[in-house]
């Protein structure tokens, strides 16, 4: 493409990072960092074009032809979809450290200041009269984690009695008063429009809300939550075409550098580097019992079991 002509100009190189919604500030800082780093290393200026949107939507746009050199999305599954479309080589998940997830996040509760409904854990969400805000897992990738966390909690509570688990989750979703199409919409519904008593959402987003309205909200960490691994990958086909494989790889590798890890922590993502994570001990609750997607048999299975048409989530609502 003509916009990539600058590749030949050895002084600048341009890459496109297709990311998801609330990573803008993080990547804004990171891109500066990386630019300095790369310039020192090669003398080249890197221009990173950022794209932000719903993670699933972003993945789809890459599949449909949005030419990303790297993708930094919310779910490994979204990247797998790109892989399945043939744009990313198989085995990308092992390409980089920590399952190609340089930072992680988890699911927490956001409640109103003083926690008037006294919400402590998942079982408080199925109480009558508690109003819950969470997005629709069918249209929002993040919301799948919300669902799975609740499921995991109930699984633990009822020792795998699927009927009881289902009832628990079902009850929880009965308490949901607005099922927004995306995580951001749910946050607005809870924060700006004052709906509901509790928002199930991303930890980093919850922190952003508290930062903006410190007098209004509190964060509650449930006993069981998930280890969400926002994944990153080089889109091999595009990078090859654009001759940017080297810089793209380096772009991702550098995410694991100490500087970048700290940057992630500052932006409320949990650094995957354990030592650096400890530095943020007073920010993050490090005692949550975190389950992983592997516990559900990986994303493909989880999607099939829970979120496909007519699967468990649909069953909950069609009852």
């Amino acid at each position, binding site marked *: 493409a003509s916009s990539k002509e600058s590749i030949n100009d050895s002084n600048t190189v341009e890459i496109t990072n297709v990311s998801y919604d609330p990573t803008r500030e993080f990547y804004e800082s990171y891109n500066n960092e990386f630019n300095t780093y790369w310039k020192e290393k090669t003398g080249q200026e890197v221009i990173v074009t950022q794209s932000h949107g*719903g993670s*699933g*939507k972003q993945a*789809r746009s890459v*599949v449909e032809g949005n030419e990303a050199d790297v993708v930094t999305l919310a779910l490994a599954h979204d990247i797998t*979809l790109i892989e399945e479309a043939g744009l990313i080589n198989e085995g990308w998940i092992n390409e980089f450290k920590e399952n190609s997830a340089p930072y992680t996040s988890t699911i927490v509760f956001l409640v109103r200041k003083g926690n008037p409904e006294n919400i402590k854990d998942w079982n408080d969400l199925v109480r009558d009269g508690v109003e819950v805000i969470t997005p*629709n897992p*069918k*249209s929002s990738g993040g919301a799948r984690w919300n669902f799975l966390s609740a499921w995991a909690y109930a699984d633990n509570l009822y020792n795998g009695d699927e009927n009881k688990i289902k009832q628990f989750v079902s009850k929880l979703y009965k308490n*949901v*008063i*607005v*099922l*927004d*199409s995306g995580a951001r*919409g749910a946050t*607005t*519904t809870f924060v*700006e*429009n*004052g*709906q509901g008593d509790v928002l199930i959402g991303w930890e980093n987003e919850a922190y952003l809300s508290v930062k903006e309205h410190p007098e209004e909200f509190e964060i509650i960490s449930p006993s069981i939550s998930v280890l969400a691994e926002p994944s990153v990958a080089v889109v091999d086909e595009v990078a090859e075409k654009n001759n940017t494989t080297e810089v793209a790889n380096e772009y991702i590798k550098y995410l694991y550098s100490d500087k970048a890890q700290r940057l992630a922590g500052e932006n409320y993502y949990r650094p995957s580097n354990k030592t650096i994570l400890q530095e943020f001990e007073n920010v993050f609750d490090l005692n949550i019992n975190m389950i992983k997607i592997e516990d559900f048999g990986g994303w493909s299975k989880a999607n099939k079991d829970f*979120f*496909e*048409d007519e699967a468990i989530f*649909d069953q909950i*609502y*069609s009852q």
Partner: protein
Amino acid sequence: MKININKRQKTMIKKRVIPGFGISIGITITFLTLIVLIPISSIAIYVSGISLNEFIEIITDKQVVSGYKVSFFCALIAALINAIFGTILAWVLVRYEFIGKRVLDGLIELPFALPTAVAGITLTSLYSDKGWIGSIFAEAGIQIAYTKIGIIIAMIFIGIPFVVRSIQPVLEKMDTQYEEAATMLGANGHRIFFKVILPEIFPAMLTGFGLALARGIGEYGSVVFIAGNMPYKTQIAPLLIMTKLEQFKYADATAIALVMLVASFIILLLINMIQSYVNKITNN
């Protein structure tokens, strides 16, 4: 045979006195094909990739059907409300003089210009039970945002210009003699409106109603924020398309889209038919 046809075409071309037929039809059809027809046909192409059974299964899925129902129902109510208020607005703008009339008139197209997402976010915050307007209704126990009423409000917002702008010119041109004739026959304002004026503006009302309805059915941006998106309750059909796309189910998405397209098309067609019937009455 062939020669005959050619000859006929020749005379047909010659027959046109006003120049520019060839180039105009050429440009019109080229643009129409490139911008509208080819892209739209891709929906058909995609849908043709799945079997009829699958197609029927997709479009009769319970959630999908309920999505249609929500979209159609809300769009219908919104279009009806718009038809009524749009008529009043058009009437007031044409027939009365008052301070601020020009401002009122100028505001009508605002929904065209405001990005739908902005409209959606704004409307939601206004009509939620904490919002300026919503709180008033909340006291009366009426919840607007995150219910069908909210969806209807958003659809009224985006549809109002269609109705007003369809009716306004007709009212402007309408001869006041009809009203005077009815007055002289002793009719009161009420009867004059329903028996004499309404039939005159009915075709225009219908056009505006149809456009508002079609727009409402397809609306996504401004509705999705204010709709609660609860399956079977407040989930609209365009959201289902988005969901299907999210799941990479292009065929499903296009199948749902095709149904909506056909529905919109039928609405337009019905309106055209009613109008040509009405025209028959009036224009011999």
